[in-house]
């Protein structure tokens, strides 16, 4: 969570996003400012109300002038900044990243419970991914359906760690974490115990509500039936982090 400066210290800055003049508090990130002003920057791991993870790299933006790329989610607005969000280069890079995600694990939309309501699917549409140029990995991951109400399908996981963060930062249970590295990276419950045997899981289901794909779902959902509701997050986050 990016700490907000105390009221007396906050300054307001002006910057340009896609040639549009906007104002921002200097403790806001470029992504926050862009969203306030209705400028859409693709993102996957970022969720308002959770700590900044900075891993999906989809929200990378370019500084006009020196063409430097920075992640909009983890870079604060500064006076005189000139940010470009959709240069040709960025479009090309984002498309490749989404393709890499599709090729990494099994993301066959037609049989997925999240079909039609999936953030990865939406990103593919947004970034113009009509086919995947890199070879599919076709690795098989297991499905853990041991929990009474929920199921985790690692084949659909994009490792955005929203589940890890919401469980730790909002619920305070820290049931989820990561294990392995590189392509062997995986989200786990407790110390890699089946979810159903987890002693720390409170069964609150916040992780399921925040999952962007069909990796974390409720039992009893079939293709296209998984609906999610993350409306609880802004309020709980505010309460959690209220000084």
């Amino acid at each position, binding site marked *: 969570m990016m700490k907000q400066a105390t009221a007396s210290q906050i300054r307001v800055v002006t910057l340009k996003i896609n040639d549009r003049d906007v104002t921002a508090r200097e403790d806001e990130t470029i992504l926050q400012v862009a969203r306030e002003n209705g400028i859409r920057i693709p993102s996957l791991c970022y969720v308002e109300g959770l700590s900044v993870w*900075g*891993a999906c*790299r989809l929200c990378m933006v370019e500084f006009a002038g020196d063409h430097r790329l920075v992640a909009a989610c983890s870079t604060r607005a500064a006076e005189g900044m000139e940010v470009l969000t959709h240069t040709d280069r960025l479009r090309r890079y984002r498309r490749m990243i989404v393709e890499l*995600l599709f090729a*990494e694990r099994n993301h066959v939309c037609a049989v997925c419970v999240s079909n039609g309501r999936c953030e990865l699917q939406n990103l593919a549409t947004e970034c113009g991914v009509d*086919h995947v140029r890199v070879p599919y990995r076709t690795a098989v991951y297991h499905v853990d359906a041991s929990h009474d109400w929920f199921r985790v399908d690692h084949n659909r996981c994009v*490792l955005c760690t929203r589940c890890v963060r919401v469980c730790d930062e909002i619920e305070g249970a820290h049931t989820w974490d990561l294990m392995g*590295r*590189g*392509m062997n990276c995986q989200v786990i419950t407790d110390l890699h115990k089946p979810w159903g045997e987890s002693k720390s899981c409170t069964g609150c289901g916040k992780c399921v509500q925040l999952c962007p794909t069909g990796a974390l779902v409720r039992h009893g959902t079939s293709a296209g039936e998984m609906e999610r509701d993350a409306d609880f997050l802004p309020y709980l986050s505010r309460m959690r982090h209220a000084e």
Partner: protein
Amino acid sequence: MQLDELNELATKVQQAQQACDHVVRVCMAASCQSSGAAAVLESLRSKTGDCQHVCVHGAGCMGLCAAGPLVEVSQRGRAETVLYQHVTADDADDLLAHLGGPVIQRLHCPTDIPFFARQQKIVLENSGIIDPEQIDHYIAAEGYQALVTALTEMSPAEVLREVDASGLRGRGGGGYPAALKWATVAKMPGEQKFVICNADEGDPGAFMDRAVLESDPHRVIEGMALAAYAVGASHGFVYVRAEYPLAIERLTTAIRQATKYGLLGSNICDTRFSFDIEIRLGAGAFVCGEETALMASIEGGRGQPRPRPPYPAQSGLWGYPTLINNVETLANIPPILRRGGAWFATIGTEKSKGTKVFALAGRICNTGLIEVPMGITLRDIVFTIGGGVPDAARFKAVQTGGPSGGCLPEQFLDLPVDYDTLRQVGSIMGSGGMIVMDQTSSMVDVARYFMEFCMDESCGKCIPCRAGTHQMHELLAKIARGQGTCRDLALLEELCEVVSAMSLCGLGQTAPNPVLSTLRHFREEYLVKLQDRDTAAAPVDAPETAS
């Protein structure tokens, strides 16, 4: 301890050393130990026993690892020493019998060869001479003079000024000006600050930091204490990889000895300055050499990087301002303080000052550790100092900078070695690993090897590095097998661009470098392996799989 006490101790140790007629030093660094140096030392010790005229002690790396175990013999009153190579325990009698007499020709290793003559030692000045396990040896070699002088006679700002005047740049690879980093930490408000020594050396073929820690650990401790004094830190960590057991052992001994002498701990030299050092062991993750991942690991978390800014200088360990320097950077600090920043700045090139330690490996005659002034040419390093390629094979390329660097062909051998020149031609200085390859090496295989390394070492946090290195590795393997197409090559180049531009940390950002540099300088090697090399390049965007 005060300066006069330190000097007194130094004189006492020097006198004791001069009481010996002959000093026999056995290289006890990891490389010589693996070829049997411990047995040599044991045998020499048992044969000399309590003899007052001959001192036998272990020493640090003598450099020419290819000729180990190495033994150096010196005689009182004579400046020149005799170096013996490939010594075995059975040679001990012979060696002792020839003390003061003629040189044993069959073991003699000439030291007038360029390998020794062309080096200039600052970081390694004590390496191979002092016993790394005895603090007295370091003190006798002017050790801790700089620290005690700085604490008692200089302000932190004056220490910083000397480092600034030296023009020292970070030796870990990036080449960031050391004084600038120090000044940032020094200017940060707050009582609690940290100093970290990055000893998580992970580049394949690189062993500079290991050698410094094994040969002269007190130098790193003194450098850290000086850094802590300059920036206002009171606590330090050495993050060293667990694969360096000997370095860890000697560093632990050194910290204990320095604490006992009051050179670490509370109120050092009766001043208000307190500093202690803890060792943290890395568990075999290359990415933990990246500073934010390293700090996460020290904090007890998963070793993976986080976005910068904030930089460690602003918000580092547990959120406090933290100075992170590489082993070799810190090892340069005591001589800079002792002899002055201006002296250091006379060595090297305009923008890269001082010397650099390189680990020579691969197809080169004189495998080992060298220290040369910045600005020396690659040709001098590979052919003059390194002795060229063995078995009359032809030189093909030299790889610098490990998995973040690149391969340079013969035409660049006359370039001066400094941070900026190497970057211009598609490689980097890196931490100092130098791997020489001859004509038998396939550059596609080299690129594939380094990509496999990056793929295995990717932490898995950001997508471009996690999935991109995997895809690039698969493409390189396919091309190396002779099954690649022009389309694969184009895709590989596109992936290189995306991964280097979009990755979160240095590991991903530089992972494509070995591919890019081999493509730049050895493109034809890729082309001949392509299946459809004779046909025109197919468009990259040809649909293969429908989503």
